[in-house]
């Protein structure tokens, strides 16, 4: 693995390799099913989930529909609170801004809190080219970085590695990056976490510059919000002297009160918790507490092009919870790397081709990386109709065919993978047809009884798939 997604094979080719990796599939199956089951329980605790989901969808749509106004309001508020706002139209410009800010501080190291936006723009590689080392501090991102690997899941980026693989990576690589792994390190998760704690604390305590993303930006107040579990986020957001946050323009929400919706939807959809262990909010700078300098880099990089597509723009509602990955039969089989971008799974299949365009073979193949079973739509906390966008993008890929037979062929090969697995398709269709009449259309009216039963909707498509896997999977692959 080269540490970059560029030049990766198109989905069907990547899948042929990853589906043969039984270790990968065992890790993935165990992890996705565990999170999936926990999530259904966490969601069932709130009997107004359907209304929260509808509110989340509408707030995001409302923001996207007036995005220029909310971005300007955000800029005004961040500036008034002592922050500096930068605008970046593409990856190269965002990387340039960050590199210049780090160099202006005379630094050659930064600590980073897990950020998909910075993965998307290849920030670490761009900084390395300028002689700046970026240290990933999320445990899973650390595993990926030390292993010279790539993340394969939004929430659990090292989901494809098991404990003994992680121990081997720590023993082999920690010493090259800083404090070495302790002698006789076991593969007990608590010992591995302790090794990471010691290795990273040294970096947190000396870091002068940190780079983050953000889960939400509140236009009304200029407040940024980061949701996390380990405390590495808090370390990055509060200890260094300078904080640089690189955030996609779609992450803005109108008001502080809107967090009441998203701070209920996100943790339960994502880690299946009532609330994640740590949420940090900050507005500009605060004298004597936290960074003295705060820079916000607002990133376009294909988002405005996505916004221009009336069907596809709903992908920008995504709050990166990863629920859609954990229910996707194609993701479970293929693994995250097959999607060729930091955004794997169903959301990746619609977001990546929109952000990057569908000219390349890998991007043209992504809209076919689905059985259209609809499970992703059922669990999505902001009701993104992923199947609808997939079909829409397939039309675009087909339309551009023409003389570009190469692309068409790639697309057909990708479709062929699914069509060559009729059971996957049948299972998908069966589940889809069973649940179709229950699909949320609008916020439920007075007849709320039947609706509340559908809180368990995320579970429904799982049944036929599980039956199918049981019948078709060799016993040693399961757990």
């Amino acid at each position: 693995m080269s540490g970059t997604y560029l030049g990766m094979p198109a989905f069907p080719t990547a899948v042929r390799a990853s589906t043969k990796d039984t270790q990968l599939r065992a890790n993935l199956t165990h992890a996705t099913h565990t999170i999936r089951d926990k999530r259904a329980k966490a969601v069932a605790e709130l009997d107004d989930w359907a209304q929260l989901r509808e509110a989340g969808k509408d707030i995001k749509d409302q923001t996207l529909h007036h995005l220029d106004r909310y971005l300007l309001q955000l800029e005004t508020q961040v500036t008034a609170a002592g922050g500096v706002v930068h605008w970046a139209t593409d990856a190269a410009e965002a990387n340039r801004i960050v590199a210049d800010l780090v160099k202006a501080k005379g630094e050659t190291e930064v600590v980073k809190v897990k950020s998909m936006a910075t993965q998307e723009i290849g920030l670490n590689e761009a900084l390395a080219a300028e002689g700046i080392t970026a240290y990933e501090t999320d445990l899973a991102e650390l595993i990926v970085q030390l292993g010279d690997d790539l993340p394969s899941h939004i929430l659990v980026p090292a989901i494809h590695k098991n404990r003994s693989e992680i121990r081997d990576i720590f023993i082999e690589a920690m010493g090259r990056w800083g404090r070495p792994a302790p002698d006789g390190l076991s593969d007990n998760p608590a010992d591995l976490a302790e090794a990471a704690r010691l290795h990273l604390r040294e970096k947190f305590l000396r870091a002068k510059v940190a780079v983050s993303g953000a889960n939400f930006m509140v236009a009304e107040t200029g407040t940024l919000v980061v949701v996390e579990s380990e405390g590495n986020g808090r370390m990055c957001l509060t200890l260094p002297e300078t904080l640089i946050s690189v955030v996609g323009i779609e992450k803005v929400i109108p008001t502080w009160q809107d967090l009441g919706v998203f701070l209920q939807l996100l943790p339960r959809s994502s880690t299946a918790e009532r609330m994640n262990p740590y949420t940090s909010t900050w507005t500009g700078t605060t004298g004597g507490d936290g960074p003295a300098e705060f820079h916000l880099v607002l990133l376009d990089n294909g988002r405005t092009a996505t916004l221009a597509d009336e069907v596809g723009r709903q992908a920008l509602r995504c709050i990166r919870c990863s629920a859609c990955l954990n229910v996707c039969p194609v993701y479970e089989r293929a693994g995250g790397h097959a999607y060729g971008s930091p955004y794997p799974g169903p959301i990746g299949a619609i977001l990546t081709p929109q952000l990057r365009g569908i000219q390349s073979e890998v991007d043209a193949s992504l809209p076919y990386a689905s059985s259209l079973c609809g499970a992703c739509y059922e669990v999505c906390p902001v009701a993104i109709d992923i199947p609808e966008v997939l079909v829409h993008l397939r039309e675009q890929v087909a339309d551009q065919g023409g003389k570009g037979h190469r692309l068409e062929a790639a697309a057909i090969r990708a479709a062929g993978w699914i069509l060559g697995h009729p059971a996957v398709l049948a299972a998908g269709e069966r589940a889809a047809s069973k649940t179709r009449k229950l699909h949320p259309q609008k916020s439920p009216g007075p007849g709320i009884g039947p609706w509340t039963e559908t809180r368990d909707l995320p579970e429904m498509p799982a049944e036929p798939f599980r039956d199918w896997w049981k019948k078709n999977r060799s016993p040693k692959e399961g757990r």
Partner: protein
Amino acid sequence: MNSRETTLARVRAALRDVPARESANPRDYRSCHVADEPTVLLDLLHENLVDYRAHVHRTTPAELPATLARLLAARNARSVVVPAGLDRSWLRDVDSALVSDNATLTAEHLDDIDAVVTGCALAIAETGTIVLDAGPNQGRRALTLVPDHHICVVAADQIVASVPRALPRLDPLRPQTWISGPSATSDIELDRVEGVHGPRTLDVVVVIAPALGESGHHATTT
């Protein structure tokens, strides 16, 4: 055109199909999911905090100093950092060295300190969350991050039911840290491990004022 103008122009061009008028968002989700009564909220906060592996203790104003002293002694805390605005009488029974927070205390210094005692802005029962907003009895964010043991004192009347109830009571211009259980990771085969970077031990001490007419001798600790 600079990048700001370019981005805004692209946004506006992308939204040509959208009518200028905004539609009102439906807000028919609940503002809370439990009976909004003090004893219900207290029990629910307690239960949810314990579920996420925080240690919860109930005490009275009179018993608070003894409770804090006991919790610090139980973890052999040699030193405790104290936010500038914390009520010092809370710590009168404590044997550990008390370090007053001040501007010269760096993260390296904090790394040598065993524990921190703070108050909070409020606590949220439904999610098992305590919220710090850098108020005088909480101090800088680093104080509750670097030492390995955090004891947070919550007055029972600071407990609110839900996230939607909490937000209007919080000032977004203050830096906030919402804490639900101690630092945790599930990155290795989804096994939950406490304390990767933040404090490994979170003690939450709920102070219940004796109701009028009662003797005040019913301190219970768990």
